[in-house]
């Protein structure tokens, strides 16, 4: 597993794995693969659970009844409701004999302090651009995809997403936005977000990938001050995307307006 050799080494060297693991990393960083590795080490099946309160409440008595090693994966715990998180507390107070729990999360602040103190936190290692390029090459992607991926993707999941979009289509779209965002009328310009996934139920390009690719295009044109400012604006907004529950539609609209009004933009806050 490219980029996580050290983490897997730590897991492999562990004589007795903890019953409750909190695996911290970005979406698409390979947390599920690490969970599979842990399950393999324990010679246990990996069961992916839903994280709704009803699912958690149903899971707990099952976990106490299993007679051989079983690993339960609770993915994306930042989306877990407070009642579901509280329901998990019992499992950490009196861990079931044969059950192991792995929670994946993007930041430990989403985990209740009580759960955090009872679990073992493992962090995914950040990927270098070389590792991203290697991942893309390993999957047989074209040179163009490898080059773009190493410049705009921070995790392997992004590389897979880029390939799924079709790199030509995606790059064409970002170029179209880049060329026209300050030319379209204000009434019309917000429609450029129509191909971007701004809500959960939407289809479309990942907003972070879109912004990173846009920044790359700005970088290719750094001789002009406008594009330097555009890159600054986009970088600032990109940082905000780490905040969970952010209204992406509003974020995108404000980005559009900031790009169009770049001459008066001030990097305050």
């Amino acid at each position, binding site marked *: 597993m490219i980029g996580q050799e050290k983490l897997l080494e730590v897991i492999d060297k562990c004589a007795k794995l903890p019953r409750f693991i909190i695996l911290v990393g970005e979406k698409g960083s390979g947390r599920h693969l690490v969970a599979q590795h842990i399950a393999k080490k324990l010679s246990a099946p990996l069961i992916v659970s839903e994280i709704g309160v009803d699912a958690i409440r149903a899971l707990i008595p099952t976990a106490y009844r299993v007679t051989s090693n079983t690993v339960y994966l609770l993915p994306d715990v930042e989306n877990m409701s407070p009642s579901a998180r509280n329901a998990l507390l019992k499992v950490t107070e009196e861990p079931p004999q044969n059950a192991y729990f792995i929670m994946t999360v993007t930041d430990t602040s989403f985990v209740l302090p009580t759960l955090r103190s009872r679990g073992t936190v493992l962090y995914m290692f950040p990927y270098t651009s070389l590792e991203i390029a290697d991942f893309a090459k390993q999957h047989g992607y074209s040179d163009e995809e490898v080059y773009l991926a190493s410049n705009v993707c921070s995790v392997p999941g992004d590389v897979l997403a880029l390939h799924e979009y079709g790199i030509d289509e995606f790059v064409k779209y970002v170029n179209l936005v880049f060329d026209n965002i300050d030319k379209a*009328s*204000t*009434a*019309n310009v*917000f*429609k450029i977000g*129509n191909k971007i*996934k*701004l*809500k*959960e*139920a*939407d*289809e*479309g390009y990942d907003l972070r990938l879109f912004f990173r690719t846009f920044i790359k295009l700005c970088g290719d044109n750094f001789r002009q001050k406008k594009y330097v400012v555009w890159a600054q604006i986009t970088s600032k907004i990109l940082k*905000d995307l780490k*905040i*969970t*529950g*952010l*209204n992406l539609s*509003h*974020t995108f*609209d*404000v980005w559009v*307006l*900031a790009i169009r*009004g770049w001459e*008066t933009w001030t990097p305050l*806050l």
Partner: protein
Amino acid sequence: MDTATLKSHIKQGKFDKFYIFTGPELFVRSAYIQQISKVRDITPRTFETFSEISRYANTLSLLQKASIYVIIDDMNILSDDTLQSVLERSDTFKNDTIIFVFNVLDKRNKFYKRFKDHVIEFEYLQSSILRGYIKKDLKLSDKGCDYLIDVCEQDYSRIRLEIDKILNFSKITGRTDYDKILVEFLNNGTIYVPPKDAIFDFVDAVLKKKKKLAYELLEDCKDIGEPSLVILSVLFSNAKQTLQVQSYTGNAKITEVAGITPFQVKLASARRDIYTDEQLVNLMTLVRDAEVGIKSGSVEEPIAVEYVLARLWG
């Protein structure tokens, strides 16, 4: 798909396997369902989800008559690829007509994009058309019609209800001075004038720069427990629509260019040129900054709206 195409299907008696009805105009939507039912001579059955009719259809015998299924606000199918694939299969529900009804359907949703050829949007009818419909039943002046349209917020279902009241009253009393009857009914509460939405009034006051009123209405919003994020979200969308309308100078219809409804255009037009474009952009940025602040913990949620107003107006 537009209503003209749907009308031709009804006229020819040849229907698609399914349609997707959306939009706020309930009366017209229901009227089309009734027409389809009449032409096919089948009473529609109403369900909550597509999964239900899948199970129901599987228990039917092969000799079962064709059906019309009306499925209202099925949120499951919007993101369920498997169900969507079942819907697409040519052998599913061969002789039936399925009508999905969504009160609101986001155009960016994958269900919408996959089946947009089957979507018919029933927007509120324009005032000019509504006036025509009202006058067919009731001899009201143009002013009376506009008043009724405004009170009923362009909702034709509600307009019809109020017309019925007036006509019934006229039948009993023999009076035919409909404009006067309308005014009396509005004054004595016979015609329902909905209480203004607190958030709507607040947003309206902000966008019309009625500062004192805005702060008062904000207190009203808080008294009824409206969360700051909701208030901010409505303020953002209305500011955006105002910006789009006031900055637009093209010839094509703004509703098509900006993707906003005629009612939203009407509201935005009443608020235009009170702020400059730059000030509206600033307002949208302030609202978004407040939202980020709430989510990241740097802005206290209960005072987030005041935070925006203080920075907007100084």
